[in-house]
């Protein structure tokens, strides 16, 4: 099994566990962790190819990330409204998530997959404890607070709004340069205090 296939297989297992256990943090085997986009690339190499489409949004590094993902995977580029995958540079989609496709009732799986490419951990307190996650994959009726720090409450609220019409919605990964990854499928119920 060649090295990149092996890495993709291992990383995929982490992504699958993350999606099965929303709000919990798992670890990707990022490619040497040289660039700040290494972890985002790890997800890209695992999931992207010419059969799907991508749109990169956000602030800082959009064109770089776009070019790097394009080169590595030959993924098709499409607009925010039609893309299968949306990579967000940074942790705020600035309303972009509202434009992403949410699927059709007969085909809810057509909803987009978001990948938030976060920076290294910012200093300062986290308001993650204001957020409560419940639903499939999360133990206990009381739910959990998201384990990943640094995701603004507003972005959780955006996702909450976009996923209000389950099973329509989007599914999100949050990834840090050190390879930490957390998933939030549309099945997760988000409450913000």
């Amino acid at each position, binding site marked *: *099994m*060649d090295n990149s*296939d*092996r890495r*993709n*297989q*291992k990383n*995929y*297992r982490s*992504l*699958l*566990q993350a*999606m*099965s*256990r929303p709000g919990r943090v798992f670890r990707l085997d990022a490619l040497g962790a040289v660039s700040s986009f290494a972890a985002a690339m790890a997800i890209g190499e*695992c*999931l*992207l*190819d010419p*059969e*799907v489409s991508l749109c990169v949004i956000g602030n800082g590094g959009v064109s770089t990330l776009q070019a790097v993902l394009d080169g590595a995977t030959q993924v098709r580029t499409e607009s925010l409204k039609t893309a299968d995958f949306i990579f967000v540079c940074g942790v705020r989609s600035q309303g972009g998530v509202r434009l992403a496709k949410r699927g*059709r*009732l*007969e085909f*809810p*799986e057509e*909803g987009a*997959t978001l990948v938030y490419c976060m920076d290294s951990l910012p200093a300062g307190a986290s308001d993650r404890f204001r957020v409560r996650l419940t*639903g*499939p*994959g*999360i*133990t206990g009726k009381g739910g959990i607070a998201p384990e990943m720090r640094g995701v603004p409450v507003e972005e959780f609220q955006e996702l909450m709004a976009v996923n209000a019409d*389950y*099973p329509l919605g989007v*599914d999100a990964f949050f990834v840090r340069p050190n390879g930490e990854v957390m998933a939030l*499928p*549309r*099945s997760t119920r988000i409450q913000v205090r």
Partner: protein
Amino acid sequence: MKPSMPSKAIPPPADWRDSGPPARGHYSYAFLDEGAKREIRRKMLKAVAIPGCQVPFGSREMPIARGWGTGGLQLTLALIGPDDVLKVIDQGSDDSVNAVNIKKFVSRVTGVAVTTDTRAASLIQTRHRVPEEPLQPHQLLIFQVPIPEPLRLVEPSERETRRMHAEADYSRMWLYLYEDIVKFNEITVGARYPVLVNRRHLMDPSPIPRWDVAKLNQGQALCLFCAGREKRIYAVPPHTEVEPLSFDDFAFRAEGFGGRRCGRCGSTATYLDEVIDDAGGGRSYSCSDTAYCEKIRRRGGARGADGPGEGPA
């Protein structure tokens, strides 16, 4: 757009029998190419994100026949890596001809270790049973599914069943069960009992017995389901509500064995296979989960057993 056509007929190359494909003994790791694996992986993520919802995928033909586990096999091949330990069972048994065949194939194209011990496995591919031993969070249970659509019992058209799922309109399934109760004072559905997942999607748990349905509810491990011929993937994450359809005054019931024990280990708490012993019709019973049965037997038999019991004649 018209292609440019050659002006003359093209004769076949001088000895075109020589231009065949190179000798193949060499397959990609786990047989499927990376593109096929990637597509299956993407669809699996969507299936996990929408528990119980059937996600279509570009199912490939496998060296085993459609209907014989190509779906489960494709999931296993898309997931598996050198660190995995694989268990394959059919009707609960590791030694069933089909389970052995699948295990041989996966071994051949991956070199992974195989086991019959449920606890030692990281990937378990199963046909029609859930292992008796509860699964751990790191384990993956992959179900082979013949017919992924629970509503097929009441509606042959895919377009129509898709609409029913879109609208969460499961009234015809409820009606079907109700009519059974009226006619027979029993629900006649045996295996493939319809369940409601995450209070939203009606799901076919694959032809597992009713005995195993409760194991899907609030489990510890991710359960993945795949129908190769029908080209659908679906999933039940851990800690997810899975409720069999049931009426307030007519509860869902699992199979009963009338207090019989396994003839080999003495267990009364496992799903039993009924075996016709002889021409006279004598019956004996033994655990369907043969590996678990072996474990109990080696430990000295089931608790409370005074030697292996026998089923009544």
